[in-house]
């Protein structure tokens, strides 16, 4: 995702668009909407790219019902009747009729959410790519108004108002709230079919007379999602992660935001794919050494039976002796807290996008800084996108210094700092960044006065000024 737009959602009133980068850092005081922003990103991914119903209560987030989610303006303004959000994403490398060789413009997705008996639903969905766009609105009686446009005109068709289509929808289970999410790809094909077989159904939304030609239809057909639907969902971590256990009993592997599954995942990988395990183990140990947390990790299978209970052990090497293996539970809490995040970042075939809430919890500043270095490494070498909510200066400063000192391939533009600033009932998000010398720069306007106000006041007091 390159940019995100939000309006009328939680504490965000006016429409605002912010820049996302390979590493995006969310900073600001508590209760300024950073976690809500992360939750929104995952919902947008689900709705726009996987065409799933939005779930604002899926862990690790719980934003409540519509009344808690839509922005409250206060007084007579009341609660927003709908809220909107959207994002842009780089175009795929697939052949495109309008941009066959040139760089394709990004695809822009917008969703207007509304309240329904069954919760929050995407009432209007819109996708744009260059001059082509398509919009889908679903009325309460289930009729889908589909509008498509290119530089040559704008056309609309209603679907679902004829018996065969209704039967088809029923057969596919598109009844109830699910009908809101009739796949865009399917609608795009239905539109093409309607133009060719039932042109009388196609209305000219801008008063034109000609039907879309084959070039228009090609451009409209290519509006379908540039991300494969089977692409892994963003990894969303919880701010408080699992409690370590002395012994793990192998159970079914079910991923959870607290990282409860991680020791089990590592044990399974060790058993089934020793080469991948060795590579991952080395990467995790490299981070452990850099962070001063541990030098080695190992699984001790109890009873000598493969697939039996096991213990997760770590070892810190001394100067002269290697030191004993110690159970994860006997180590400081920081080790078990950071392990799920580090494993997900480094494991092969992992997610491409990470939504991390305070990954620095329980970590000493040395380890917080090392985590910043790891983020740079993962974003640059593994081409992952990391959206990190953090209160750690050490983590942010390491990213800044690694970029300034060219210890990573990331460039200053590869990092976006989003500062969430509360003003009365609403929050403004400021897009900041760094220049090549590591100086803070505002991407739009100037650096807000309140930015790091607390740190400044405390430092001033600390040095007696």
């Amino acid at each position, binding site marked *: 995702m390159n940019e995100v737009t939000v309006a009328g959602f939680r504490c965000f009133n006016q429409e605002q668009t912010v820049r996302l980068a390979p590493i995006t850092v969310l900073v600001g005081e508590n209760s300024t909407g950073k976690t809500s922003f992360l939750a929104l990103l995952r919902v947008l991914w689900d709705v726009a790219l996987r065409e799933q119903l939005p779930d604002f209560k899926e862990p690790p987030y719980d934003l409540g019902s519509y009344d808690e989610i839509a922005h409250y303006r206060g007084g007579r303004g009341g609660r927003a009747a709908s809220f909107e959000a959207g994002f842009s994403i780089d175009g795929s490398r697939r052949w495109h009729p309008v941009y066959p060789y040139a760089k394709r413009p990004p695809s822009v997705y917008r969703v207007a959410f509304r309240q329904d008996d069954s919760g929050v639903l995407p009432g209007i969905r819109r996708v744009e790519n260059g001059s082509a766009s398509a919009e889908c609105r679903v009325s309460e009686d289930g009729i889908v108004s589909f509008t498509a446009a290119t530089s040559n005109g704008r056309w609309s068709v209603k679907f679902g108002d004829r018996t065969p289509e209704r039967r088809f929808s029923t057969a596919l289970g598109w009844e109830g709230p699910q009908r809101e999410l009739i796949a865009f790809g399917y609608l795009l094909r239905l539109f093409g079919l309607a133009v060719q077989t039932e042109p009388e159904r196609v209305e000219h939304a801008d008063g034109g007379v000609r039907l879309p030609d084959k070039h228009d239809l090609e451009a409209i057909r290519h509006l379908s999602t540039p991300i494969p639907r089977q692409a892994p969902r963003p990894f969303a971590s919880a701010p408080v992660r699992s409690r370590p256990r002395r012994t793990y009993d192998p159970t079914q592997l079910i991923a959870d935001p607290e990282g409860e599954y991680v020791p089990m995942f590592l044990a399974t990988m060790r058993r089934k794919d020793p080469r991948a395990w060795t590579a991952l183990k080395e990467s995790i140990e490299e981070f452990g050494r850099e962070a001063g947390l541990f030098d080695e990790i190992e699984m001790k299978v109890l009873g000598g039976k493969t697939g039996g209970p096991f213990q997760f052990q770590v070892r810190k090497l001394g100067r002269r002796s290697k030191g004993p293996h110690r159970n994860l539970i006997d180590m400081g809490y920081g080790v078990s807290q950071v392990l799920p995040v580090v494993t997900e970042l480094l494991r092969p075939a992992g997610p491409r996008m990470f939504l991390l809430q305070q990954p620095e919890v329980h970590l000493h500043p040395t380890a917080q800084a090392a985590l910043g270095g790891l983020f740079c490494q993962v974003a640059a070498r593994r081409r992952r996108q990391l959206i990190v909510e953090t209160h750690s*200066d050490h983590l942010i400063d390491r990213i800044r210094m690694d970029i300034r000192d060219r210890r990573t391939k990331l460039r200053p533009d590869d990092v976006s700092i989003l500062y969430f600033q509360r003003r009365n009932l609403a929050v403004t998000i400021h897009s900041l960044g760094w*220049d090549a010398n590591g100086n803070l720069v505002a991407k739009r306007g100037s*650096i807000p006065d309140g930015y790091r106000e607390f*740190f*400044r006041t405390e430092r001033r007091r*600390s*040095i007696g*000024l």
Partner: protein
Amino acid sequence: MCLILDASARDQVFGRNPTAVGRELFDWLEARRTRLVLGGKLTEELAGSDSFQKWAETAVSDGRVRVFDNEQVDRVTGVLSADWSGESDDQHVIALAEVSRARILYADDGPLQNDFRNPELVSSPGGKLYPTGESRNATRHRLRLLRQTNLCPNR
């Protein structure tokens, strides 16, 4: 405006007992009405003060200080030193002015002040000294400098 603070005047701003003008400058820095530029050897000299170091740590993160590439400043210092005609031995300060294009100097060092005003060393535009007097005229002059945004590097 962007300002170079020489180590000779550092304690007037960041010392235990700052002067009234130093205190005023500090407030302006805090309010982002002016910005300090750092780079090269001058950074090391200023960092000799714990107070300054602690302040700068935070100020760099929140954009109250503009840091310039040390290598570039050192390179220009080397070039200046090869053919130096100034009164002081502060080529690194002149080099920072050249790299950063900051043209206001707060210093308590006569030879450096002369060098900074020497058009053969600092030009286009010429260097100016930050008035340290407490008279009404000096205050007016400082306020005038504060408004001169063209003395700030356009970055």
